[in-house]
């Protein structure tokens, strides 16, 4: 009886402590799962520009002229620096991205990237940025296992692990095992 109460208390308190971390890992997990379809950390926008080639003559490829060009073609953006990746291309770094210009045609791509609110911060933590966070993440991972195991023994009776719980827990085991059989061991 006492053991069951202790188990319930551990489950409850770990749940409280790790509520927010679970939200962080859950949300960023979904975000990172779908990297194929979006950049989870940055909102990246591209815009095609057509720059007058007269503004791109060699004598105009200096800081002052390029600040003016940035103001004209990317209003609101601040010039940072520029360089030429090759003889026909100029890359201007701006506060939120860059402008890559074909010096011959004047065709350019303005790319801006801004941090995606909430996701940028959560993904930062998900990527385990520093050693101290790894320790926290390890503690969280162990706690998740404790939460899962203690969760099995919260209830007694027909909804407990000997009844409904057994069926649902089995379902949770069968799904990953089935995937392993099909995609890892390739039995089917």
């Amino acid at each position, binding site marked *: 009886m006492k053991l069951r109460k202790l188990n319930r208390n551990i489950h409850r308190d770990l749940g409280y402590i790790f509520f927010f971390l679970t939200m962080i890992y859950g949300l960023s997990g979904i975000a990172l799962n779908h*990297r194929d379809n979006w950049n989870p950390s*940055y909102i990246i926008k591209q815009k095609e520009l057509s720059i007058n080639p007269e503004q791109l003559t060699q004598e105009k490829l200096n*800081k002052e002229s390029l600040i003016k060009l940035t103001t004209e073609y990317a209003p609101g953006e601040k010039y940072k*620096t520029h*360089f*030429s990746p090759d*003889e026909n291309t100029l890359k201007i770094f701006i506060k939120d991205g860059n402008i890559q210009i074909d010096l011959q045609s004047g065709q350019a791509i303005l790319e801006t990237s801004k941090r995606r609110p909430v996701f940028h911060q959560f993904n930062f933590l998900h990527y385990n*940025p*520093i*050693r101290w966070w790894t320790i926290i993440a390890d503690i969280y991972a162990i706690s998740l296992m404790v939460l899962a195991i203690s969760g099995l023994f919260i209830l007694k009776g027909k909804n407990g692990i000997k009844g409904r719980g057994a069926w649902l827990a089995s379902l949770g085991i069968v799904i990953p095992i089935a995937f392993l059989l099909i995609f890892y061991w390739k039995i089917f």
Partner: protein
Amino acid sequence: MIKKVLGILTVAAIMVSCGNKEQKKEACCDKEMTKVTVEQVMENMQTYVDKDIVIVGTVNHVCSHGGKRMFIMGENPDVAIKIIPNEEMGVFEKELEGSHVIVTGILEELRIDEAYVANLEAELTEGGDNEAVHDHSGGTHEEEAEAENEKKTQIEAMRTQIAESENGYYSQFWIVASKFEVKECDHDHDHDHAEGEEHDHEHDEEHQH
């Protein structure tokens, strides 16, 4: 009770907000530190291997895949070196691209010989990643397949380079950074180039990521 919790959360939010504003910026041209340029390091790699260095350059690329790598270039944009944060430093943000930075760290050398390539090949077969052939793919399936082919090509290129080397190995270099500061300069640090100058901005094969 609720008031106490809200109080703690407010204090935590203020601390986080203050922490974010604490950007490390340095007035331009601090004379006290002995700094080297990217060109100086690239010309005398062996001199700096395993030594603490303070290197100055312009960030030309930050890895969008988690910010664990960035490249800084010198006055000559053909010359760039890879920077990796150490475990305490965290990651590099994309906003750094185009910024002038001062990086403190240790230059590390990786000697690549036939035994290394054989191990690498085995690792990659098992689905591992490796700094010597790290790719910059965004992680889509097509990009991953492309990256896989690229890694195979890189392994072939490594073997060719080993065969062509005098010592039976060649080296890759990068800096493991312990600190970096954004330089705020008003004066011109731009990479202006004379007319007709050639600007092949492919990184030197030895410094490929």
